């Protein structure tokens, strides 16, 4: 029983881990092309083993045949899926991020056509010669087209790279801008608070001045009343004649005093009034400033926020562009692979031309496809490195493109 368990575990863990890998890496193509047939193979092997263990030889043979069939089906499916994936990738890339280019459409269409033609090739052996010719001409055409596409891609890669570069500096600037805006907003807020305090002080001083004025008014009233009193005394004194003379002197001096206090009160009043006016003006101005500053701060904060958002969006953009870049590089790799594969195909076709016989070619073709897939895997890593260097990729492409041309 533990054996069955082991098989089941093997059968489940392998695809599961593959799926997990897929999820982590996001690279569906690997899953679809490599892991899916492998897991199929795994399942088939485990079914074979299980039937051998439990059902004897006959069932083993049956199940082996079944497994082989499954593997073959898996391989065919994998290949189809891989092609479709690349198709969709390239298509989505062109439609989503870059301006539509008729070449690309044609290119994609061509691939589809290629695919169908290859299938046709498999079925129609009698047309092989004709096909070979066709293929040969088609491959040259493909070569030409691919090399043009590669060239365009490289150019696009340049542009995108430049965009990416420019974008990153924009992002940097935006970040700085947001930081600065935040700083300004902070200091504006602080100054608003400060002005607020200042304003309160001004108000306080106005209040003080007002109370001074009211006191002064009291003094003024008092001096007014004293003045009246003194005047009345003067009148009485004047009427008393000679006897009132001394009294009149006192009265008039009181009057003078009250006059003086009236004057000084008036002066203090004037000063206080002007003080009040000044303070009030200051208060008014700072009161006006505070909301101004506050709105400025608000606006600046808004700016900061917008900049931040912009920054985020730019980052997203940048990420997308980077993603695009990788995708393009992948694509480039793929195109290179395709290019290679086509070359191989060309070679194969040439060899067919010289050898004849379809069956081996079909088998070879299948094998080569299979291998080319794995090669493609290995090569993609290489080209990835190569892609980072413009010069190199350019050379490689030119080399690649020139080599079949030369032949």
């Amino acid at each position, binding site marked *: 029983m533990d054996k069955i368990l082991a098989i089941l575990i093997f059968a489940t863990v392998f695809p599961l881990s593959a799926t997990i890998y897929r999820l982590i890496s996001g690279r569906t193509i690997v899953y679809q092309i490599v892991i899916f047939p492998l897991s199929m193979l795994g399942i088939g092997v485990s079914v074979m083993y299980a039937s051998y263990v439990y059902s004897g030889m006959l069932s083993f043979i049956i199940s082996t045949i079944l497994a082989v069939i499954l593997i073959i089906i898996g391989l065919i499916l994998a290949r189809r899926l891989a092609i479709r994936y690349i198709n969709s990738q390239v298509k989505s890339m062109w439609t989503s991020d870059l301006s539509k280019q008729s070449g690309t459409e044609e290119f994609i269409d061509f691939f589809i056509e290629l695919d169908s033609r290859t299938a046709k090739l498999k079925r129609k052996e009698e047309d092989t010669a004709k096909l070979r010719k066709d293929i040969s001409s088609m491959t040259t055409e493909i070569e030409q087209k691919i090399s043009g596409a590669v060239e365009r891609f490289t150019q696009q890669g340049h542009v995108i790279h430049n965009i990416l570069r420019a974008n990153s500096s924009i992002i940097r600037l935006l970040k700085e801008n947001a930081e600065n805006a935040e700083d300004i907003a902070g200091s504006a807020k602080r100054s608003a608070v400060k002005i607020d305090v200042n304003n309160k002080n001004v108000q306080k001083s106005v209040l003080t001045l007002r109370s001074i004025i009211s006191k002064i008014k009291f003094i003024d009233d008092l001096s007014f009343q004293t003045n*009246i009193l003194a*005047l009345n005394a003067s*009148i009485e004194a004047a009427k008393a*004649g000679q006897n009132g003379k001394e009294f009149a002197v006192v009265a008039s001096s009181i009057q003078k005093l009250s006059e003086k206090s009236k004057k000084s009160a008036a002066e203090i009043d004037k000063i206080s009034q002007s003080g009040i006016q000044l303070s009030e003006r200051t208060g008014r101005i700072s009161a006006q400033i505070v909301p101004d500053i506050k709105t400025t701060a608000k606006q600046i904060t808004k700016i900061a926020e917008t900049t931040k958002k912009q920054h985020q969006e730019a980052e997203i953009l940048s990420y997308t562009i980077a993603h695009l870049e990788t995708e393009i590089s992948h694509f480039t790799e793929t195109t290179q692979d395709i290019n290679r594969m086509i070359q191989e195909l060309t070679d194969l076709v040439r060899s067919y031309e010289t050898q004849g016989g379809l069956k081996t070619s079909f088998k070879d073709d299948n094998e080569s496809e299979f291998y080319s897939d794995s090669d493609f895997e290995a090569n993609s890593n290489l080209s990835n490195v190569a892609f980072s260097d413009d010069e190199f990729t350019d050379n490689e492409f030119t080399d690649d493109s020139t080599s079949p041309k030369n032949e």
Partner: protein
Amino acid sequence: MAQNENTQNTYLTFRLGTEIFAASIDKAVSIIEVPEIIKVPRSPSYMKGIINVRGTVMPVIDARMKFGMKPIEIKKRTVIVTFRVDIEGENVDVGALVDEPGAVIQIKKEQIMNRPDIGSKYKSELIVGAFTHNEQFIMLVDIDKVFTLDELTEINDSKEEHSLEEHIEAESHK
């Protein structure tokens, strides 16, 4: 008092508008702050009303209107000068609203000039003389007349007020 003050007379000054007037101290009784003035209906406009002065009812006139000026506005400095005037041989206490009280001053008789020639600017029959005191031109008023020439004023009030006002206005613009 008459003997030793032959050469000097005492006056009480007060301001009406921009002019300073003086009245004989013998006629003045006191200066009071402006209390509530009760308007007596159907009385001439210069009769401001009556006031309660320590339990007695005293009529109050607008001194400015009496001199043909604009009606007085009661402000902080406005006071009532109460006079004891002779109306038909009877001593009557009356109040006059003035813009500001002045001072009690002594003027030598020879300092007093004859009635100034001020034309129709102020009711000249109320002014009996003028003098200069502390570089200020002061007009001497016959208080009895101020309060008794009511019929005259009443008639003139309606007829002349406007033109007088304009006149004063014109004067002040100069």
